[in-house]
């Protein structure tokens, strides 16, 4: 084998090996997380990749833990918890949209909703209503309402109705904002009354610019 061929193979194989390593994002963790945590985190991320789960949320969780100087054991637990939520999310998406391989973005969005405290049935219901839509906005809208003490099922009902009346994408976030505004109005009202008022104005809820 001539030296030119060896050089050419080295030039091709070197970057390929780096890409393979960085495909899961683990190379981004070197120097950013405690060395003691790195093997376990790498193992978790590799497992996620092997299961066709999105790995970026786990990489981000590890980077976050490193930036916050979280001790190694707690950091690994945080990443492991993220992996469990991704698995749970994929199971929900698979049930809601059977016969299709779940999109990684959808799985990540559902995992984020689970992290915000939404229950499996509510998440599954919202995905089932709009199986071709990115689920993130509707899930966040319901999570916003739940965070403001609205009943989860009633909040999901409102979002389903908003979808049925033509609202899509980030406009669904405006539904939650509108309900919260109704709740804050002088004179006061119950959460049920606030939801009823927003339901009556659908689909003409006010659009919120910038940070909703």
């Amino acid at each position: 084998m001539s030296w030119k061929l060896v050089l050419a193979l080295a030039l091709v194989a070197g970057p390929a090996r780096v890409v393979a390593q960085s495909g899961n994002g683990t190379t981004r963790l070197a120097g950013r997380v405690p060395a003691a945590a790195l093997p376990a985190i790498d193992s978790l991320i590799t497992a996620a990749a092997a299961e066709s789960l999105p790995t970026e949320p786990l990489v981000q969780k590890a980077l976050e833990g490193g930036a916050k100087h979280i001790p190694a054991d707690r950091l690994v637990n945080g990443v492991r918890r993220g992996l469990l939520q991704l698995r749970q999310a994929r199971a929900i998406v698979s049930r809601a949209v059977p016969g299709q391989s779940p999109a990684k973005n959808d799985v990540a969005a559902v995992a984020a909703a689970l992290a915000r405290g939404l229950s499996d049935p509510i998440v599954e219901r919202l995905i089932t209503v709009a199986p071709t839509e990115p689920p993130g906005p509707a899930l966040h809208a319901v999570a916003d309402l739940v965070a403001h003490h609205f009943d989860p099922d009633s909040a999901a009902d409102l979002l389903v109705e908003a979808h049925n009346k033509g609202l899509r994408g980030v406009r669904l976030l405006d539904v939650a904002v509108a309900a919260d505004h109704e709740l804050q109005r002088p004179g006061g009202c119950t959460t049920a009354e606030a939801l009823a008022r927003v339901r009556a104005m659908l689909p003409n809820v006010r659009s919120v610019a910038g940070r909703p």
Partner: protein
Amino acid sequence: MSPLDPRLQEALDGERDPGELPVDLREAYALLAAATQVLKAMPPVSVASRVMTEIRQNPARAHSEGRARRLIRWLGEGRAVTVRLRPVWTLALAAGLAAVLLLPWSMGGPTPGVAEGIANFVGHFPGARSVEVVGSFNDWSRGVLHLSDDDGDGIWHAKAVLPAGQHEYMFVVDGERWVSDPLAGRYVDDGFGAGQQNSLLIVRPVSAQP
């Protein structure tokens, strides 16, 4: 202006006897010859001396007006201004002017793409020496996005173009204190077991912003 009759011109130049001119041209010749004599009798007057003569003839206007009135009159009068520039300085001036005109667009406001949006970060941290925002949009890296408080009122702010979608973040005050954004409105447990809450930001793409 009507052209001067060539015969009259020749007579004025001494090339023709004025007595040979027709009667009407002879009268014109007489007038022009008289005018020429008058002009020859006057001493040459420079521009400067004419200006000074004008000033001396109007001393009251030059000295009795207030400074403000003179300034207004000076500003209102037309003046010819001649600027001599070498080409190299002209080019430098043009480049400087272009930079002044273009820089506000490139520095004053970030321009988001279709799948991006603008995030405004605001926090009230009176007495803080530094505030930065660290989150999933910058790989939780320190030293990337600093908030500023130019007027020292304790309200720190920063603007950034971010990819549309969900981002978790926290403020880092004085380089060591991690603080949730009290204005975020959305929070999520960070999952590390200490009950710390990340702020949650959902960036709308510019196409979805009214």
